[in-house]
């Protein structure tokens, strides 16, 4: 375990009766990092989040928050932890201010600093205007913000957000995302979600979990490289033969998909677009479309999570290459 690792999860297992919800999970979250925890419904995301958040005891393995075991010294560990569960834990009969005062008190913020902590949490979550309103009367987006305010009120080192944008409209989703990015400036964040663009826009690192097993763990940069285009879609008025296309420098393979369109494969470091355009002009092929086909995170996700054989196989590194092949 390195010094700046704020969450360390070691060989975590969780069984519900016979069902194994989380299987041998190991990962770390470093200081200032935003980890996207990705998986289809029922993959074990929430179970893992609840175990890190001290709400559920693991069947085996351990969770360290800032080097402190959450089962051995729950008080110390939980002091550095902010947790927003899937359903925000809100008392609907309180006003926002009353609720945050209560949260400040149960999180052991000294009385003298409570006012400042509440004000700063409210400001960061855009709640200054609604302090006196009943939580029950707030929109779902605002309730979610109150949930996030609750999680950051005691300036924890680690913030766990379990599907924070579920059920919000697109504008609220954008607001919540920018709030998460803002939170990430000061805290390490673990964000569980099944929404892929969210991970691409907010996270530094992606982990994909399927059927309780970690199947991918990569930084967003690695992910982006993986997602780089390796195929081009060209539409030509006069379709040349496959042989002609393949003879162009840099092209590794070509296939005609329908009349007038062809898919061209190439090596990532050697883009043949220029050469294709040049050849098209010289030979009068009538090029009218040239599109790099990008692999989306979505495809990677679907490939990884849908391949049954994979979920049973070795978790971890092996997965990347297959995602690419798709």
């Amino acid at each position, binding site marked *: 375990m390195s010094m700046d690792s704020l969450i360390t999860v070691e060989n975590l297992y969780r069984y*519900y009766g016979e069902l194994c919800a989380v299987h041998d999970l190991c990962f770390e979250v470093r200081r200032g990092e935003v980890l996207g925890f990705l998986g289809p419904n029922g993959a074990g995301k929430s179970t893992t989040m*609840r175990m890190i*958040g*001290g*709400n*559920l*005891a693991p069947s085996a393995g351990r969770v360290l928050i800032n080097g402190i075991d959450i089962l051995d010294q*729950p*008080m*110390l560990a*939980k*002091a550095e*932890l*902010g*947790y927003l*569960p899937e*359903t925000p*834990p*809100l*008392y*609907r*009969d*309180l006003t926002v201010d*009353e609720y945050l005062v*209560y*949260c400040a*008190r*149960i*999180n*052991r913020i000294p009385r003298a600093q409570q006012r400042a902590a509440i004000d700063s949490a409210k400001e960061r979550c855009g709640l200054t205007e609604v302090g006196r309103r009943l939580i029950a009367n707030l929109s779902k987006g605002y309730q979610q913000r109150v949930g996030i305010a*609750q999680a950051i009120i005691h300036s924890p080192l680690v913030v766990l957000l379990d599907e924070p944008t579920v059920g919000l409209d697109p504008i609220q989703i954008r607001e919540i995302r920018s709030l998460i990015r803002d939170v990430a400036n000061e805290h390490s964040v673990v964000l569980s979600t099944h929404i892929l663009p969210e991970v691409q826009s907010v996270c530094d690192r992606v982990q994909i979990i399927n059927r309780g097993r970690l199947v991918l763990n990569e930084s967003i940069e690695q992910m982006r490289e993986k997602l780089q285009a390796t195929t081009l879609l060209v539409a030509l008025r006069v379709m040349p033969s496959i042989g002609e296309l393949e003879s162009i420098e840099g092209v590794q393979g070509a296939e005609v998909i329908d009349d007038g369109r062809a898919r061209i494969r190439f090596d990532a470091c050697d883009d043949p677009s220029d050469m294709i355009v040049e050849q098209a002009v010289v030979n009068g092929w009538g090029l009218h479309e040239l599109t790099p086909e990008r692999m989306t995170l979505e495809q990677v996700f679907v490939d990884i999570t849908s391949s049954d054989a994979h979920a049973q196989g070795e978790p971890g590194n092996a997965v990347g290459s297959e995602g690419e092949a798709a």
Partner: protein
Amino acid sequence: MIFAIAGRELRGLFLSPLAWSILAVVQLILAYMFLAQVDFFVQLQPRLLTIPGAPGITEIVAVPLLGNAAMILLLVVPLITMRLISDERRNQTLPLLFAAPISMSAIVLGKFVGVMTFLLIMLLMILLMPLSLLLGSSLDFGVLAAATLGLFLLLASFAALGLFMSSLTAQPTIAAVSTFGVLLLLWIVDWAGNNAGTDAGQGSNVLAYLSMLRHYEALLKGVFNSADVIYYLLFITVFLVLSIRRLDAERMQN
């Protein structure tokens, strides 16, 4: 920490109309009983004066009032305690407490202190009635204090059991019904001993000892027996510990 949770619990109670209506109804019914008892005493007074060592107003008015109050609160306390934990479970707010740096015992004790504060307010309002007799009479404070202590311990026992029942379920009504059932059973459990006649066996003695009513009756008479007090204290401790264990177990299983 305990007080933060207790404060929130008390606030939650008074934010709902339930607490207010319970206070009002209990006060109304007991006031009626109190007045009837005072009326009875006024009728009886000329005859009592002729008897040396006759029971005073404390025995005739205050003690029956507290005895009746126990019966009514047996019905009412389950309604107050039913929501303590089951409501949090139903609204999924328990993770807030579990993720905060507070121990399970602080959570349970906080809830208990909160509901006890409410019951204490109710007890004080009930006590105002016999105390109002001081305007025109004098009271036997020894008897009154023992009876009040008895009622207080009884209420605390009701609350501890109610808290435990509430920790078992996510449905407040189920918590209320089962609390009421267990309390009533513990109340009447000594009937078996009574029906068996005077030469009751060992078993019915045990049953009689378990009865909450028996221990309360002694205190109502002004008899302060430490065994009775310890009975209640043990009862409260057992159910508070069981509640803590129950919440701990919640993290272990689903």
